[in-house]
């Protein structure tokens, strides 16, 4: 008979951990001197390298706080793990909204997780700035409270394809990708863009996550003999793919995603010769180790001294800059509606970090509509606008 009380005790205990139910209140999560913001990211699991984006964002918050906060309020970030898993992300979102009662949400790497929690956030109605996940379905069609603060899949895919086509005489394009939503979010818009320009891929290959060899893919590519390869691969597989290309003497240029960067790819493959034809989407104003990016690198290292910096580290900061603008404009009598209204007024905001400006309007919640490309020019990472055209 003692079974019941025990089991119930567990459930009740869990329930009591909650502090009442959350009414969708305009000022929930606000005090006179703080704004509570929920930051969700994949802090665990096999996609945890993405969470560097959330680390960068939280460093930015701390910088803002150290500079005195916004209208007398400091940002209190509540970090929640999504593990890049939809069910876990849903639990995280519900916890932040109903239990931690945050004012708004900001962050989110992993499109799958973001898409899964979207209905919940639409219902809850609090502002949500998606700072890393790229899937267009998050912000299209526009919803009042959801803002996209990074170049989305369409923008990225088109930027990749446009760069590929900017190389003179590009006729044959091949695609190598993972079979996951992340890779598709880049490759599908790129395919569409190529198709719009009358180009069908000559080869469409898959290289799954965890593969340590790309011989089959490279040999097939050698047969297809493309002028350009679009590679939507994670960091590790990118390095393996490039190494195997070099191994089998294939020196076709490769266009990579914003999931990799030149500096770290070079570090991983070990020699410049292997990466000299590798180009990546580069949503920033400068090279990662360039002067314009240095202040952001220093900022992250000030708060997270041991953090290794990659492309991901900076990606969410631009939307942070935009948020701070909106919060300032909303004034001391902050409400959720006011913040959303101010976000909608942001126009052509130069964030000082993203190569694209941010513009939100009630009709369009995808804020960043372009992305630069980076490649090695004379052995130096260089931001490019188009083939052989510096930014």
């Amino acid at each position, binding site marked *: 008979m003692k079974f019941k009380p025990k089991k119930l005790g567990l459930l009740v205990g869990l329930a009591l951990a909650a502090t009442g139910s959350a009414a969708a209140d305009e000022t929930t999560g606000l005090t006179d001197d703080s704004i509570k913001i929920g930051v969700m990211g994949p802090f*665990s699991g*096999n996609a*945890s*390298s993405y*969470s*560097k984006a959330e*680390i960068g964002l939280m460093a930015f918050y701390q910088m803002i706080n150290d500079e005195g906060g916004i209208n007398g309020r400091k940002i209190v970030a509540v970090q929640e793990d999504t593990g890049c898993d939809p069910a876990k992300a849903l639990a995280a979102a519900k916890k932040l909204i109903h239990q931690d009662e945050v004012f708004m949400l900001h962050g989110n790497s992993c499109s799958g997780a973001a898409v899964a929690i979207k209905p919940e956030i639409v219902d809850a109605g609090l502002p949500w700035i998606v700072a890393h996940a790229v899937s267009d379905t998050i912000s299209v069609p526009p919803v009042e409270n959801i803002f996209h603060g990074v170049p989305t899949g369409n923008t990225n895919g088109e930027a990749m394809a446009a760069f590929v086509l900017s190389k003179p005489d590009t006729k044959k394009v091949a695609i190598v990708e993972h*079979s996951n939503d992340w890779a598709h979010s880049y490759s599908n818009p790129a395919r569409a863009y190529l198709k719009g320009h009358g180009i069908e891929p000559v080869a469409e*290959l*898959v*290289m*799954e996550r*965890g*593969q*340590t*060899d790309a*011989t*089959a*893919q490279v*040999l*097939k590519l050698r*047969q297809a003999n493309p002028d350009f390869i679009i590679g939507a691969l*994670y*960091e*590790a597989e990118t*390095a*393996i793919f490039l*190494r195997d290309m070099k*191994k*089998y*003497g294939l020196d076709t240029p490769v266009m990579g995603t914003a999931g990799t960067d030149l500096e770290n790819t070079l*570090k*991983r*493959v*070990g020699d410049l010769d292997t990466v000299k034809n590798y180009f990546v989407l580069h949503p920033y104003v400068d090279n990662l180790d360039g002067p314009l990016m240095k202040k952001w690198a220093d900022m992250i290292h000030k708060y997270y001294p041991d953090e*290794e910096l990659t492309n991901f580290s900076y990606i969410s900061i631009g939307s942070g800059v935009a948020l701070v603008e909106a919060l300032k404009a909303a004034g001391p009598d902050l409400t959720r509606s006011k913040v959303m209204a101010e976000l909608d007024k942001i126009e052509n905001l130069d964030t000082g970090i993203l190569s694209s400006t941010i513009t939100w309007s009630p009709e369009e919640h995808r804020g960043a509509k372009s992305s630069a490309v980076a490649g090695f020019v004379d052995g130096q990472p260089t931001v490019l606008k188009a083939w052989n055209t510096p930014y």
Partner: protein
Amino acid sequence: MFLQLTLSGVSQGAIYALIALSLTVVYRSTTIVSFGHGDFVMAGAFLTYVLVVAIGIAFLPASLIAIVAMFLLGVAFSRGLIGPIRGGPHVGLALMSISFGFTLRGIARTVWGREVLPMPRVFDIDPIFIGSVVITGDALFIISIVAVLLVVFFTVLHFTDIGKMVQAVYQSERGARLIGIDVERFHNFSWGLGAALGAVAGVLIAPISLLHPDLGASFLIKGFAAMTLGGFGSLAGAVLGGLLLGVAEQYSGAYIDTTLIDITAYLLIIAVLLIRPRGLFGRKVVVKV
């Protein structure tokens, strides 16, 4: 292209063979399949990385230290965690190895979770060109190390007294007790040997791949497939199965579709089950209970 694929398949397959062999070494002596073995592979690779990059030891001594350390970890795992529940249900034993591997992975993740670590290049041997076929230093290195290891392993097993004792335990555990072999110690040793062989695979993968905590999971599946293909529990079969799997992956990827590479292992497991459950080389499926 065919030759090139075969060569690259053999080089990949050599690693699968090593993992399948290490799984079989544990299975034959203890009748337990180590579901955490992928993480032993990962741990071996990470240990080598730490020794090389963080401490600055040269690759060869570092990998030897890592292999010895993994041997000791395997022994400790057997003594501390498997020993107490031996004789219990197999589900418990399977879950024990899964949980231990899970813990290792978790540890790797908390330390290096958000990084993808490159191992410094070790043997920069220039590739050899034979006609249109490229033989890279990595492939040469892996194939020769695995070949030497296998020759030593099977020589010891078949032509030395120690090897005869090992075979004795494999064939009849009770018989081994009757001739005074300390079977518990032998089990511990087998776990150590299995972990060490897995670590060798990790050391070999490390320079060609990049290190991340989930490195081992996919290799575990490949090891299983190789083991199944070769006849569950056959040592030589595991090695042949590994090589075949490596080559089959390359062929299916290049001649059919690259989406198949990742599931070649699963397809082979299912095919073996449907067509020849004893595996391609097994006399019969040795499922000891």
